[in-house]
């Protein structure tokens, strides 16, 4: 089974996580919302599949390039 990492695209903090482990998602679904540069920036699913491990929690500071969660395709 292929795994796709959901990688953080920008420095900021995790404001909301909108899915939980085991949820089925489609490519481009909103998985979480980050707060950065005073904006609410969505994290979109890079691929369709099932959410595996979620590696961050709401309120966490995150950096560009950091893995946020894993999608099992």
């Amino acid at each position, binding site marked *: 089974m292929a795994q796709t990492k959901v990688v953080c695209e920008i420095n900021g903090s995790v404001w909301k996580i909108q899915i939980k482990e085991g949820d089925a998602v489609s490519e481009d679904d909103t998985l979480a919302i980050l707060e950065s540069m005073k*904006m609410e920036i*969505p994290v979109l699913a890079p691929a369709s599949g099932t959410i595996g491990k979620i590696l961050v929690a709401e309120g966490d500071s995150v950096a560009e390039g950091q893995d946020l969660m894993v999608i099992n395709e």
Partner: protein
Amino acid sequence: MAHDEMIAELAQRKEKALAMGGPEKLAKRKAEGHLNARERLEALLDKDSWIESGLFATSHRPEVRDKTPGDGKIGGFGKVAGRPVAVVSNDFTTMGASSSVVNGKKIRHIREVATRSGMPLIMLGESTGARMPDRMGAEGRAILGQDPIEYLRSRESPWASALLGACYGSSTWYGCLSDFVVMRKGATMAVASGRVTSAAIRQEIDSEELGGWKMHAEHSGLVDAIVDTDEEALLSIKKWLSYLPSHQNEAPPAYDVPEGSQGRGQQILEILPDTPNKVYDVRKIIDLVVDKDSRFELKPRYGKSICTSLARIDGKSVGVVANNPMFKGGAIDVDAMKKATAFIVQCDSFNIPLLFMVDTPGFLIGLEGERRAAPGKIMNWMNALSLVTVPKISLIMRKSYGQAYLNMGGGRNSDEVLAWPTADLGFMAANVGASVLSGVDKDPEKYAKMAKDLSRDTAVWGLAQLYEAHTVIDPRDTRETLIRLFEIHRNRHGSGVGKHRLAVWPTTY
């Protein structure tokens, strides 16, 4: 009688050449679900428009003459949507379409005719690279790759490449010299194959990781469109060509305006968020401004905080450079900078007016950007913008901050600067400015005062009063305003043909 014999020989030689690498190899390819080099020509070109050049060419080496019909690269001329084009279709079943002395002559001829006669050049790529043993040793050096303008690109006419299999050597080089590159999933493009690379660096390399579609669509940015099948790749080339003139000395073709293109302005207000901290997908707004269903996005998976699309307004081609707040809040990273510059160069070279749609908090600053030469990329972009001679219109939708204000056509960098009443102009966020001026939060009192002073009025009216925005418009009137203004600015060169000062700029950045 003598004539009959000669004509029979012609027919027999023709049949042999058309058989390409033989039934077995062709059947194997069919079973894999891919078109062969001649089927690709059929799918690409208008019916019965093909005229071949070099059908009887073969390798110059006597021992493989019989095994090299067309010498592995099929060349000629045809038509797409009634307009002439020049094509090279690589026949992988013939010695892996490897580059040889004779097929190099063929490519050169097709390329020269395309340039002289003002036709797009289309390369259907799939090739293994330089032919062995032709290329080996000093003699190989002396007879292959001896064309000093083989890699000269000066954009007299548009070039498109399809990557439709293993692409190494010439398919890779022509892909990178092209204005438009489409890749079929499963194809690969790299300097050398995974096998050669593995042997050279003594490390197991997976070809897909080395040069597969994801790598090029998301990381290298060398590919403009990704498709699932050969047929879709050829359709994609036809679609791209529909926005382009046949050569640099004419305006792009005009089309009828599709029904339902007008009167959609109200929907813009429904998409545009009413608070500045909310984001939206700018593509939904572009779609309402340009002719219905006319938008063709390039590099959609690369540098996503800038969206580059060819489209039509009032039936005529435009190139749209738009910030997309949906990704990185619209902050422009290095990939987005490279993508914007390449797109500006392409549009200016082929007489396609530019529309900038602005909503950006500025360039994405940080260690990663500086390591990747962000300041140089920003200046490349500015230099390109300064050399553009096609009409440029900039529309400030929301934020326009920092140096990015100029890169997105602000100041005197466009022929017209329009703004919506939602425009928000500034240099940097007030709290950031206050931190800088007060010594990074060390003195809270000083910081608070600074922040207050710096939160100056960033509304659009200051820009309009000083006539830096030429006008402020109701978002619902955007399309109609753009139709009128492009009509006015297209007049400058009479025929809508620019000066192409960027025509010799690189095809990749």
